[in-house]
């Protein structure tokens, strides 16, 4: 387009800032929609929306938080409805649940000197491959899953997560707490299923 310099500039600038974040967006989209077709659509829609609202983006502010906010809003309005949610979770039963305590007995070291904290822990977690962790995450109800992802994967602090989701810091904390507990409960069931640890 003749004389369309400013539009090209806008696009170049937008791409420079936001295209490097596509893996981040795709990952969240994959975990939230739980399938690649919807994840691709969600990422694409997020980019188009972000481009339309690019004038509202303040340079120098957190671009990743800005575009992830658009992604989570898009997900909420569009994809949530036809998602089959994981089975009902009894929250009381996870409140005081610690996976590390459950696993302890079977991994009892032969002698005390072997009980070196981190190494023993690594052994426990080695029982799980990435697919197990992904499955466990996807089993966590949406709201909690999103909070865990934003904290563990994207490493936002609670305040940033609260702004992205549009809720209070207190709500974020409780969602992260419950999300992690539900995830750990799933990992425990998996370990039992595989006979890695016996049921109590």
């Amino acid at each position: 387009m003749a004389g369309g310099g400013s539009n090209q500039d806008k696009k170049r600038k937008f791409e420079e800032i936001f295209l490097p974040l596509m893996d981040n967006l795709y990952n969240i989209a994959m975990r939230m929609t739980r399938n690649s077709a919807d994840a691709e659509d969600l990422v694409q829609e997020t980019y188009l929306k972000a481009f339309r609202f690019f004038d509202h983006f303040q340079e120098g502010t957190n671009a990743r938080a800005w575009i992830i906010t658009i992604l989570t809003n898009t997900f909420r309005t569009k994809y949530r409805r036809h998602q089959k949610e994981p089975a009902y979770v009894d929250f009381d039963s996870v409140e005081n649940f610690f996976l590390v305590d459950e696993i302890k007995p079977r991994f009892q070291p032969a002698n005390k000197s072997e009980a070196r904290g981190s190494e023993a822990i690594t052994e426990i977690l080695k029982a799980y491959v990435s697919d197990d962790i992904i499955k466990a995450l996807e089993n966590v109800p949406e709201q909690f899953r999103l909070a865990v992802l934003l904290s563990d994967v994207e490493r936002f602090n609670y305040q940033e997560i609260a702004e992205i989701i549009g809720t209070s810091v207190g709500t974020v904390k409780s969602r992260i707490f419950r999300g992690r507990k539900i995830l750990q409960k799933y990992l425990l069931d998996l370990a039992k299923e595989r006979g890695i640890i016996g049921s109590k």
Partner: protein
Amino acid sequence: MIKCEEVLRRLYDYIDRELDDSLKSEIEEHLKLCKYCCRHHDFEVQLKLLIRRSCFESRAPEFLKNKISDLLDEA
């Protein structure tokens, strides 16, 4: 000294670096001395890292990058 119960209750805040300095150092001191809480701490930290690593195994497909770039041209 701060109790185990309190440490475990605030463990996620500690790991996620959400605590003020005084409580943070109280928990740090406790973790140095208490194997039980230390084990909990190490486990949660490593699981958090494992979640991050597991999620980053998938990358946006190349065709999607190209498609989005094309769509931006038309936008």
